[in-house]
């Protein structure tokens, strides 16, 4: 599904942030991505999401060589990926419901076909009473859950999450982890970037450890 061969990345003429990164992500797998702050976790997630291009090495996403992708091809692959950003990236002029429904809208689905699904998912992540609220009145944890709901609503083949439990209390954190595990059981590959050792210990999943730009699989 994902293959990195000796991938390196540098910004402009600066030093390499990622060096000789090599790993595979198989369909239906679950990985934690961890490492100290500034190790390059977010950069690696951005590479996986194709919002950055590697400076060197080979990178395949869903069997496609990223270096050869057109803009349309990149968009098509992104529709198969769900992503949760650390800063949520919710649109302030849309309600929680509209934010979560955005990927389905972009896919061209009819609103009547997904209206109930979106509402059900929002209830499941504990935002049933915040459906019509705008992001500016949501707490950090509520925004986090809305962002996660948006990432998973279209049942992506690959889910990337950057510190998804960073702003929520342990109970909600466990609930979100259960959501990720459930998605994984249904066939979605999951990569969660986190510092939270408590979260990682709850699940026996391989860890991609980034340190000083190098990646090790443990």
């Amino acid at each position, binding site marked *: 599904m994902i293959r990195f061969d000796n991938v390196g990345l540098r910004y402009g003429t600066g030093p390499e942030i990622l060096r000789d990164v090599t790993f595979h992500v198989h369909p239906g797998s679950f990985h934690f991505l961890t490492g100290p702050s500034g190790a390059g976790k977010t950069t690696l997630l951005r590479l996986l999401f194709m919002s950055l291009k590697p400076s060197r090495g080979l990178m395949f996403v869903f069997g496609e060589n990223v270096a050869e992708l057109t803009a349309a091809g990149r968009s098509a692959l992104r529709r198969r990926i769900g992503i949760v950003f650390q800063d949520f990236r919710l649109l302030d002029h*849309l309600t929680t419901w509209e934010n979560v429904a*955005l990927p389905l809208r*972009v896919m061209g689905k009819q609103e009547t076909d997904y209206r109930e699904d979106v509402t059900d998912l929002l209830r499941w992540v504990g935002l049933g009473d915040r459906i019509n609220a705008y992001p500016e009145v949501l707490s950090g944890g509520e925004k986090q859950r809305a962002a996660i709901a948006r990432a998973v609503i279209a049942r992506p083949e690959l889910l990337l999450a950057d510190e998804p439990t960073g702003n929520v209390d342990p109970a909600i954190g466990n609930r979100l982890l259960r959501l990720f595990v459930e998605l994984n059981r249904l066939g979605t590959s999951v990569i969660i970037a986190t510092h939270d050792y408590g979260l990682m210990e709850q699940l026996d999943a391989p860890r991609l450890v980034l340190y000083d730009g190098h990646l090790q699989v443990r």
Partner: protein
Amino acid sequence: MTLLADIRDYPWKGLLAGLLPARLAALLPQRFQTKSAQIVPPASVAGNALTVVIAIMSFLACLTLGAVYMINQSATAWVNDIASEITVELDPVNSADIEKKITLVSLFLAKQKGITQVKPLSADDSAKLLEPWLGQGSALQALPIPRLIAVEIDRSNPPDIQLIKTALSENFEGVVLDDHRRWQAEIRTLTRSAALGGLAVLGLVAAATIAVIVSATRSAMASNREIIEVLHFVGANERFISREFERHFLGLGVRAGLMGAAAAALAFLLLPTMISMLGGGVVTAAETQRLIGSGELDLKGYLLCVLVVIVVASLCMVTSRLGVVRVLKNYA
């Protein structure tokens, strides 16, 4: 194929609701309604200032097109009028008995094929034609004014003008036939000049509109950069993103185009009154009327204003789409 697929997949139902003000859109049938808000907020794309600028452009385009149309209509009527008539001029100096000569020439003309009516003008009628320039009085009567015969021709079966000219010069002395060709050519030149001038103005208006829309598109994309990034993250392609912007510009084009066309239609409705209010005397009014007719647009003229609305709206939509696609090339 891409264009056909684009037209087929276009969210036409949502577009209709998007073009109307919220209160009117709420009255549409349920299938045209959508619960979701627009992804790109309308206020971040089309402000009042931009609407006013495009409305002024539409107004100028409608005025130009309407004026060219009126001049063309008036000139066509004039050409048709003079093309169905020829004038025979009799020199009074070389003719002892002018009245007898007029009768003879008239009888000769009446016998020719393709001539439907021969109308000799009396001396008073000929003098009256010169009154606007020479005034009334005895001095006019003292001048050797040429006598005229107005001849109407059958346009479906026209006579051989050259043959009649030759026959007249062989049989009568001091008789000249004028088939008004020089006037027709001059009117056609005037009409072409007006049309070319109008085209130049329309070209400038279109160029200014395109420049304004390109600038507004870039500005809208810059202020909505975060939305574009999020759309990219959820897998939106260029076509989807450009549609989100172009629908606003289409709405803007329709609204502004209608405003401009309505103002121009009002101006054309009031034009006859304005011409008479501006004054300038009977001769000025007559000359103005000769140039642009009564100053009123007919149905075809108003349809041209509707055409301007369609062109302006399409221009706004297509320009914004191309602008969005160009800017998106720079995004990852």
